[in-house]
């Protein structure tokens, strides 16, 4: 079974306890009413669908209940890093970015 390190539990936990929660590092506009329809649509719907290393939100829904961020390789399904929301995307060797 795939193990995912929860940054709040500070331990590896089975994948079954987690739920994927979309793309990470997408900031909601402070004033949505001031955003053009095109930009708002982009915020809501446009995703990169990267083949390789991608930053995602995950939810330890059947554990501590917290959301966190993860760098995952969409080709190999390897988790390269998990980190608390609000923290910058970490530099991971081989992650390209």
């Amino acid at each position, binding site marked *: 079974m795939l193990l995912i390190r929860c940054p709040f*539990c500070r331990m590896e936990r089975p994948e*079954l*306890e987690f739920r994927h929660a979309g793309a990470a590092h997408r900031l909601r506009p402070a004033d949505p009413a001031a955003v053009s329809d095109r930009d708002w649509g982009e915020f809501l719907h446009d995703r990169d669908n990267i083949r390789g290393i991608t930053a995602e939100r995950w939810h330890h829904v*059947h554990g*501590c*209940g*917290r959301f966190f961020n993860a760098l995952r390789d969409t080709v190999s399904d390897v988790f390269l890093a998990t980190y608390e929301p609000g923290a910058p995307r970490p530099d991971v060797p081989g992650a390209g970015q």
Partner: protein
Amino acid sequence: MDEAPSPETAEMPPLLNRPGFARLLPVLGLGRLVFRGVPAAEARLGAALGLALPAINRMVHRGERGEPGARALMRFGPDELLLLLPRGELESAIAAISQACAAEPHILVDVSDRHLGFVLEGPAVAAILHSGCPLDLDPRAFPVGMATRSLFHKAEILLWRIAPMLFRIETGRSFAPYLVAQIGAGARDLG
């Protein structure tokens, strides 16, 4: 940290009883309080209870279950604490905690009827739990004193280890028949 059956459970027939293998008993008469608050509120809670604050996925306790004054405090999330105590002491505990923490932001919710709890004990408990729980229950990975939320098949559970061969398991009230049936199936599959 042996946990003797409380007077309530002693009167209940075990849900599973195979001597030298495993025993499953319901736990009755428990009060359950969820506490969430800022660190200063937590500190006052700990002082009011006379308990150290547990780290995440750990429990601390005082006294034995069912005894007057017995308390168990567990941390299931970074700021999510669950207090177990004899049901008859709920009202006085709520009053004491509310008074101790009044000056600090916190919530205190009585969730006594949300869960049903069980004792699972015997040499086969880890093997039975492994039939439906994805956690590593080796004592090095899940030591005595660990307490965490997880899954048993499709049911969300709270699981904590009181002794090497003694676990407590709780689930939402409506999931309890499913949990008991699945534990029974796991036990049967082991022969």
